[in-house]
Structure formats: structure tokens, C-alpha cells
């Protein structure tokens, strides 16, 4: 076990965990932030996506020992982020969600895309969210909602 000082959603959080523990488990088990989901555990589905130093990152494969000083932002902070808020509003407006399990990861990837590419094309959306799997196949509505969020952010 080792102690780590993490910056999560702008707050300093201390955890005492094994260095090999994936960030996902630190968030969910130690910090009780369960908005970030466990899907596949091998970075193949995108359900666990968070932002690490602004980069959409699969938290299930990131050992906490490799995080360093980089700040972590999770789905819990998206309502207070202008782009995150716009994306969540668009998600509601387009009624994107079916079962909802993958959606926090979808939203984190969509926000990362819009922060980098304010007017994404269909290809941009398909490529950037291509690693986020939705078993309910809400992809068409996700694409519409990303475009709607982009319009609202103009």
C-alpha cells in the first residue's frame, strides 16, 4: 500500500492503495465516485473514460502509481463545465440514453472532442467516440446530440 495525493475535480484527495490499483477502482471504491463505470476492464469499451490532464483516458487501465500530479476530471464535474453542461443538456434534449450504462463514458469522450474540435464533422464524431461502445446502439442519437451541443456552444 502507498499513499497518493490526487487532484480529482479540483479537490485534493488522499488515498492509500496498492500502486497497481487502476484509477477506476480508486474513484469508485475509495472515493465513492460511482459515476464512472466499469465495462470491460481492458480499455476496449470506453465506459470508464475520465479526463486526465485534459486527455480522455481509460481509467480501468491506468495504475494509480502512473498518474503523477496530473489532475483528474470525472463525469461528476461535467455539470459545472460549460462544454460538459452543453453536452448533458443535448443528451437530455435528444433523449440519447436507453439503459445508460455507457453514457458517462460517451459524454466524457464527447466533451474531449468538443473542447478540441468545436465544429466536429460526422467523421470526427465517429472517430473520437469510436472507442465507446453502446450495447443499446444509441450511436445515431449520440451523433445528433454532439452536433446539437456544438451548435449551443457557438
Amino acid at each position, binding site marked *: 500500500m502507498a499513499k497518493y495525493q490526487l487532484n480529482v475535480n479540483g479537490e485534493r484527495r488522499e488515498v492509500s492503495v496498492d500502486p497497481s490499483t487502476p484509477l477506476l477502482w480508486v474513484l469508485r471504491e475509495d472515493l465513492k465516485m460511482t459515476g464512472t463505470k466499469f465495462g470491460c476492464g481492458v480499455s476496449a469499451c470506453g465506459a470508464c473514460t475520465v479526463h486526465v490532464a485534459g486527455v*480522455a483516458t481509460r481509467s*480501468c487501465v*491506468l495504475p494509480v502509481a502512473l498518474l503523477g500530479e496530473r489532475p483528474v476530471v470525472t463525469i461528476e464535474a461535467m455539470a459545472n463545465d460549460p462544454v460538459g453542461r452543453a453536452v448533458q443538456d443535448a443528451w437530455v434534449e435528444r433523449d440519447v440514453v436507453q439503459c445508460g450504462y455507457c453514457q458517462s463514458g460517451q459524454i466524457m469522450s464527447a466533451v474531449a472532442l468538443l473542447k478540441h474540435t468545436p465544429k466536429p464533422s460526422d467523421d470526427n464524431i465517429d472517430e473520437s467516440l*469510436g472507442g*465507446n461502445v453502446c450495447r443499446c446502439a444509441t450511436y445515431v442519437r449520440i451523433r445528433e446530440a454532439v452536433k446539437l451541443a456544438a451548435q449551443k456552444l457557438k
Partner: protein
Amino acid sequence: MGQSFSHQTAVVLALLEDTSMRTFTQRTRAAGLLVVALFCAFGAWAFLSGARAEAQRADRRAEGLAAWEQVYTVLTHPRCINCHTATNYPQQGEERRRHAANVVRGPDGHGVPGLNCVGCHQKSNADSTGVPGGPDWHLAPLSMKWQDENDKPLPSATVCQQVKDPRLNGNMSPQAILKHNAEAELVLWAWEPGLRPDGTRRAAPSLTHAEFVNATRRWVEAGTPCPPIR
């Protein structure tokens, strides 16, 4: 008496002149022969020297080509070639399968905003989760592709020409290529590729890194020769 003396003198002088002429002619002939002999000797020496130099050049080229083939075995090893693709995606694994999770190259080889290489690949291997990592993990540019669009490794001759062409290799001189192979962190990663998700060790190239650098050096010192393109 006086006439007789004059006559004798004339005869003697004529004899002397004849003798001196003969000696002169003989000397001239000998000198000519000597010059010809020297010329031939020089020609033979020059010919043999040229042949020896040509043989040395051929030996050097053969050594360089042999060294290149060793370098080529490393470049086409999955640890290296998986990120030197000709396509819009990297590969993974020993069998060089298409990278999982719809990962794409992106505009600069680092992926795209929601699906960036460093979103999974950290600055070092994540052995507890089985994800390889190294500094600035990314795909090589298309100009440095070492396989075709069907994911088959390009022939040795083609890769060789490409690796040494400054227009394609990132403007690297032969010495810079040597330094790159000796020191670049992502090159070094190939010999410390970490653990797979199942805990087994990923395969490294068959040459050691020291052998790889040594082969690169011998190739560079031989003038970076390449096999003929067929």
C-alpha cells in the same frame, strides 16, 4: 706525309664518331626499354591497386548489406512495425492484429481527441493492467511506413531506401539514424516491452539492443548500402 697524316686522322675521327653514335643509340634504346618497363610496372601496380580497392569496396558493401539485414529483422519485428503501418490504424500483438477499440491514426499519428494514444498508453508500461507504454506513444508518420496497405512488411530493399532518405525519415542523416536507434526512448522500449494482460512477457526483437546498434553502426560506416529493388 702531311696528306697521309690527315687521312689517318680523318679515319680515326670517323671511327670514333661511329663508335660514339653506336653507344648513343644503344643507350637510347636501353633508356626507352627502361621507360617502357617502368610504365608497364606502374600500369600493373595501378591495375592491381584498383582491383584491390574495388575488392575492398565490394567487401565493405557486403558487410554493410549483411548489417542492414540484421537491422531489418528488428524494424519488422512486431514491437516496431506495429506502429509503422501504412493504414489509418496501429496494430497490436505478436500476430500484428488491428488495434482494438477502433483506434485511429489521427492527423498527426497521436490518435483523435476522444481516443488519443496516451489515453491508454502511459509514459511507462502499466504491467498491472497489461498496457504497454513509453514517452509520447504515437504512430510513425506514413512516410515511415514499413508495411503495405494489406499489412504485409515491405521488402528489405524498400525499407532500406526509405530509412536512409532524409525526405522520408524526418531529415535524419546516417549519423542521426544511428543516434536514433541507440537512444530514442520508443526504440529502447522495444527491448523492455512489459507484460501482457495475462502476465506473460511480450516478445522483444531477436537481437539485443547493443547488437542492433552495432549493426546500425556497421551499416552506416559502410555507407548505408541497400539491396537492389527487384
